[in-house]
Structure formats: structure tokens, C-alpha cells
């Protein structure tokens, strides 16, 4: 099945709405009310949890079949370690992404991505 540009346009509009609602409603809601302390304390751990879940999915899960792949994506795993080191030392997102891309490109020539 092929989508047309019109389908893509409709998809973009729906995506915009799906992206907008969770960004706007809490801002609106909490801009006039006080956020409970416990809620803030809990939310503190949300970004790190979500990002880890996303990274783990990319590195250890086949997203077409949703199966655990272990150490199959060796190139990505090694590149991920490089990114951690670069991110920790440089604190720069641009450098981290750049090193990650170069590392995975080189490693992919002799390992499975």
C-alpha cells in the first residue's frame, strides 16, 4: 500500500494534534494551580526512565517482531558506549550525536548494526 502526499498531509495534521494536546493541557492546567510536591518529586525521574526505555528498545529489541535480540546489534552497542563517554566528558549533544554516527558507520562495516 502506498500513501499519497495528501495522506501524508492528513497524517501531519493528526500528528500535530496528537503532539499538541499533551504539551498544552498540563501547561494550561498547572499555570493557574499549584503542583503538588510529591508529583514534582515523581516527575523528576520520568525523563531518565523514558529515555532509557527508548534507548533499550533501539539497542535490544527488534521493533518489527518485538523480540529480545540480546547482543545482536553489536555495532550499535559499541557505538552507544562511545556516545556515553563522549556525552559524559563533553556535555555536548552535537558532539555526542556526531561521534555516535561516525562510530556506528565505521563499526557497521564489520559488525551487524
Amino acid at each position: 500500500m502506498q500513501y499519497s502526499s495528501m495522506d501524508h498531509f492528513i497524517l501531519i495534521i493528526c500528528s500535530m494534534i496528537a503532539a499538541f494536546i499533551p504539551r498544552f493541557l498540563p501547561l494550561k492546567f498547572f499555570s493557574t494551580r499549584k503542583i503538588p510536591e510529591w508529583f514534582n518529586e515523581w516527575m523528576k525521574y520520568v525523563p531518565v526512565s523514558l529515555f532509557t526505555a527508548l534507548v533499550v528498545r533501539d539497542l535490544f529489541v527488534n521493533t518489527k517482531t518485538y523480540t529480545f535480540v540480546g547482543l545482536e546489534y553489536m555495532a550499535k552497542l559499541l557505538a552507544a558506549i562511545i556516545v556515553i563517554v563522549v556525552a559524559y566528558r563533553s556535555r555536548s549533544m552535537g558532539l555526542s550525536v556526531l561521534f555516535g554516527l561516525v562510530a556506528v558507520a565505521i563499526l557497521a562495516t564489520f559488525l551487524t548494526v
Partner: protein
Amino acid sequence: MEKTEARWVEVFKVSLPLCLSYVPIGLACGILLHAAGFNPLLTLLVSVLVFSGGAQFLIASMLTTNTPMQTIVIMLFFLELRYALLGSSLSQYIKGTSKKFLYFFAVSLNDENYAVNYLKFATDKSWTPKDALAVEHWSLLFWSVANFIGSLVGNLLPMENYLDIVDFALTAMFIYMIVMQIRNKLTILVSFISGVIAIVALVTLKSTMGLIVATLLASFIGFMIEHNIVKKGEAKGNFWLKKIKPKASRKVISKSGEK
């Protein structure tokens, strides 16, 4: 010395590291969207209207696997749900602004400009909601232009064999954001717990819902552990809560404008 600079220059300087880091990721995202069948104009449109690296990579990868549209939108909604949490933590700083302002602020909010703005609001008393919106708009400009160029590059060069590699840009971005979030050993523990739950939940649920389950459970576990340590009055010098200081010098940290 900085006080004599025009305000917009100052704000631009704060946004610049973030904007530059958007260039490689935006290019990668544009290439992937092109491979998924988006023309350059649609790529530009989605970058402006959705403005989320994660969401756009998700759209690209799901279109290439012919996922039905409603599934894409639902998955996207779950992915974007995290902004509800980011947004509510930022809301205390933008109290008293107009509804129109909130609308514009919400439209261009994303992970990275959130991180910059949250840090500025927390550390710089003179940081205003208007400055925060300007940071969002600078990052939006760089992001959408990079996407547009990426889409054109995908048009000109055959990239099909390199998509797996380009896709790693997003993974690297998230790894970077994890590293920036590490404050103490408890954060590392929470990250580990989330990773384990994510694998189990993804494999059993066979859907992106696994990510939401892992996020909510792991963050709640972290919250409960910290709550218990604090309640027992052992917070000071506690093994889990002891601050981890980055190796990079102070100057490098403040220059990057992020945590």
C-alpha cells in the same frame, strides 16, 4: 560585559549549542523522512508543526513498515505524553502569561529546549517566559531547516543502505539526554530498572505501550526509594543520593548552556 549586549543576542547565545546540535540530527531525520516518502515541503511542514525528533523518527520508521495511519497517530500520542510531565514541571515558571502565549509555548516545546529553559529558569532570575519562547523558536528554525536540507540530500543521494546508521542519531541523542540526567546513583538505578522493565514490557505487550509502562513504573520506583530515604532522615551522605559531579570543567558546562 554581557549586560551591554542586546537581549536577543544573549538569548541566541544560550540557544546556540542546542541549535547546532540539531543540525546532524535534523539532517538524519530529513533523510529518513524522505526515505519514508515525504517530499521536502511535507518534511518542512512536519518539522514546524510537530517539532519533535522522536515523533518524526517514529513517523518515518512506521511509514516504511506500512503501519496504518491511526496506529501511527496513537503511538505518537503516547510518545508525546511525556511532554505532559515536562510541561507541568515548567508551568510554575510561566504563570500569569496569556492563553495565546501558552499556546505558542506549548506548540514549540520539546525535550531539548525544555532542558535549556528549565535550567535557565532555575538558575537565572532574569530569565523571562519571553526569552524561553525565543529559545524555542531558534531551535525550531535550526531544526526545520536541517530537516529540509536532509530531505533534499535524500533526494539527491541514494541513502537506502545507510538508513540503519542514520537512525542511530536518535539513539545517540537519547543516550546524551540520559547522561545529562544522571545526578546520583539512584538515577542510574532508576535508569537500569527502566531498561529491564522496558525489555520485558515490550516483548510481552508487543507494542510501544511497553515504553509507557516502563517509564511510569521505573519513575515511581525511583520516587518511592527517594521518599523512603528522605523520610528516614538519611538523605545526607546517603550512598544512593550522593551527587555525582561530571569530569568536565565548570566552564565547559556553563558554556554548553545545559545541565
